[in-house]
């Protein structure tokens, strides 16, 4: 008797306990519902206050624009969440997409990992709108459009690359300092850039460029199909195109001692801008703002209208509106406003993020823009020229980022950490690549 009743009682109490927890949960979710219906109400009554969050990384140049937007729309508060690096932003975005919560209303994407998210386009709102058709360069929009014609992101900037250099260090080493003479000096292929570097290093304490990784990035961005074919078939890293660039970069960095051995975005890298550790760097438009921030107070930075091996594009971003947002319409309006030509010209003025909008590229305002920090260089005109010089549009498929990371790590091992030589580090890269299980 007792033994039969005991479990029954326990079970009852257990059920009661569960019920308690369940009601606890359900009351919680009821609260959530209340909050979200409140949000829905706000959509109707436009006077109610709503808050939109915008997640960006590095420097988008949006600070003043956001203030302006809030003045134009008094009922909307916009908060910007800035990640220090694009990698960090990607981690945040992936984690929150997987969790299905915590995403910002507007999320910025980098072109290198756009394709991998395009596979899960269900998580993003379709932003296509007849009013803004033809606003961007065609390839910029195409990259963010799914096979069935859904546009998941508005283009912000592109990254046409020039060479940024320290005129004062050039002078000390007996090289020309004028930006046109420097452009002539560096005109040519990568070998020319490296051999000028050898001359520089011979008569200077500074290194020629900041890091092997950044230089590799600049070179691989001139290759149409580095890791994947146009139909996204994986080629991988074990082929001559990638291996040759890898060897060239490490030969220049280590054997010819051109690199400052800094990992890009590391604390050392940030600090090195202050002590003149290197004289040149590959310089996409958005890098101008970063140099200006890191090298604040340093005089002598300039920018030359030249890039080894022709033109190159490094990065460039998009603004998306995840389906998770409670205010899809307001978020879309904000993203549309931020990526309008007028606003992107202002962002360029603030942080050098070079616009991807056709109208902005033609505007006199952009072309006549100069940058005080870079010795009054006509950055608008220079970057427009650099954008024209871009011939290759590298294909960046869903696995681009993951594959690229294996080579980037290999370069860091040799150039920065010096735990391996080029050959053994390459073996490790192959192992890491095989672990991805793509081949």
């Amino acid at each position, binding site marked *: 008797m007792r033994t039969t009743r005991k479990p029954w009682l326990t079970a009852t109490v257990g059920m009661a306990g569960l019920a308690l927890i369940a009601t606890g949960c359900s009351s919680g979710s009821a609260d959530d519902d209340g909050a979200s219906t409140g949000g829905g109400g706000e959509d109707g009554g436009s006077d109610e206050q709503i808050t939109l969050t915008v997640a960006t990384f590095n420097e988008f140049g949006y600070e003043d624009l956001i203030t302006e937007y809030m003045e134009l729309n008094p009922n909307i508060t916009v908060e910007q969440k800035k990640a220090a690096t694009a990698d960090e932003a990607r981690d945040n975005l992936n984690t929150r997409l997987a969790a299905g919560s915590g995403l910002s209303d507007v999320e910025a994407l980098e072109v290198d990992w756009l394709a991998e998210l395009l596979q899960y386009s269900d998580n993003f709102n379709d932003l296509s709108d007849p009013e803004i058709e033809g606003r961007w360069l065609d390839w910029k929009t195409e990259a963010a459009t799914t096979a069935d014609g859904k546009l998941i992101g508005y283009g912000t900037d592109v990254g046409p690359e020039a060479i940024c250099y320290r005129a004062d260090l050039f002078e000390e080493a007996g090289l020309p300092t004028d930006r046109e003479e420097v452009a002539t000096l560096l005109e040519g292929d990568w070998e020319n850039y490296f051999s000028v570097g050898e001359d520089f290093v011979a008569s200077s304490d500074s290194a020629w460029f900041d890091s092997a990784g950044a230089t590799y990035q600049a070179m691989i961005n001139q290759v149409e199909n580095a890791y994947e074919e146009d139909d996204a078939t994986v080629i991988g890293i074990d082929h001559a195109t990638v291996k040759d660039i890898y060897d060239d970069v490490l030969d220049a960095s280590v054997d010819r001692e051109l690199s400052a051995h800094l990992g890009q975005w590391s604390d050392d890298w940030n600090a090195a801008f202050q002590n003149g550790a290197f004289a040149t760097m590959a310089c996409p438009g958005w890098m101008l703002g970063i140099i200006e921030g890191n090298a604040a107070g340093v005089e002598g930075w300039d920018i030359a209208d030249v890039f080894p091996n022709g033109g190159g594009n490094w990065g460039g971003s998009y603004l998306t509106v995840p389906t998770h947002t409670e205010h899809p319409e307001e978020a879309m309006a904000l993203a549309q406003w931020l990526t309008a030509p007028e606003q992107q010209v202002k962002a360029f003025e603030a942080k050098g993020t070079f616009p991807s909008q056709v109208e902005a590229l033609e505007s006199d305002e952009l072309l006549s823009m100069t940058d005080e920090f870079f010795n009054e260089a006509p950055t608008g005109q220079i970057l427009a020229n650099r954008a024209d010089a871009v011939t290759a549009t590298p294909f960046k498929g869903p696995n681009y980022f*993951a594959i690229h990371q294996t080579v980037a790590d290999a370069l860091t091992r040799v150039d920065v950490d010096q735990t391996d030589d080029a050959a053994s580090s390459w073996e490790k890269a192959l192992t890491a690549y095989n672990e991805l299980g793509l081949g």
Partner: protein
Amino acid sequence: MSVTAPVGTEPEQSGSPTEPPPPPDRSDRRQNLRNLRGKLDVRLSPYLYIAPFFLVFAVVGLFPLAYTAYVSVHDWHLIGGQGEAVGLQNYIDVVQSPVFLQALRNTFSIFLLSSVPQVLLAITIAAVLDGNLRAKTFWRMGVLLPYVVAPVAVALIFSRLFADQAGMINSLLGTIGIEPIRWHADALASHVAIASMVNFRWTGYNALIFLAAMQAIPRDLYEAAVLDGASRVRQFFSVTVPMLRPTIIFVVITATVGGLQIFDEPRMFDQFGRGGSDNQWLTTTLYLYDLGWGAQKSFGKAAAVAWLLFLIIIVIGLINFAITRRIASSAQAVKKHGGAR
């Protein structure tokens, strides 16, 4: 009350033909029922009181554990979700990967470098705080201060201090003529740097636990020791440390669990948070994170690592348990010995 009232009137209706069992039986039954209730109350209530914990544990502990096991035998993509069942393939992939072994090596190395000096330092600090100091509360609170700082903030500050070229620690070492240490390149150096963050945060906390235990040691033991002519140092090693044994075990166990799960500090140690280009400071939890959220986005493999880590912690826990039992019994021997004096 309305339920019990009819029960009370039942004996009066005993003559009714529809109720064959005789009255004495019934009152027996009532008595039995009462006894049963009483016994059930005594026996069951304790379980009921602790039941909420186990229910919550079942929801937030047991279920995730089981679900992780379920995920670990599937192809499971971070965003794409559940794929095919693959049996133990994820476990095989993980165990065969050299990266997993590196991660284990790093985890244990960081764990040893952090917990051993931490316990020794904490006992020493506690011994100092146990002495006659002015402004006792001030010193005690001061020791706890690093614990208040968020681990991520600690990691951010320390990773700047430990920067290879521009870091303060290397420039300090430079002033006394020591070559800069490559904190982010050399595996052992990176472990020391990360362990120092852990030690910074936890030493004071553990010192306070030791201090509390020290103050519970009967003072007559020290008096006896003084009469026997023991020096301060001798008192510390022959009275204080043996009496602290159970506390030491507690601190070691919590440090073990925390140490094997270390994540924040290595994650924040460089700009990418992937444990270094050559996996110099990739810990098991960081490896788990990288598998699930990094390039591979494979929740299946990440779940397999989680289970392997769980099994490792259980093994270490069993070892700890064995040691605890041995030391706890010897500590009792010490107490009896002390009492006999």
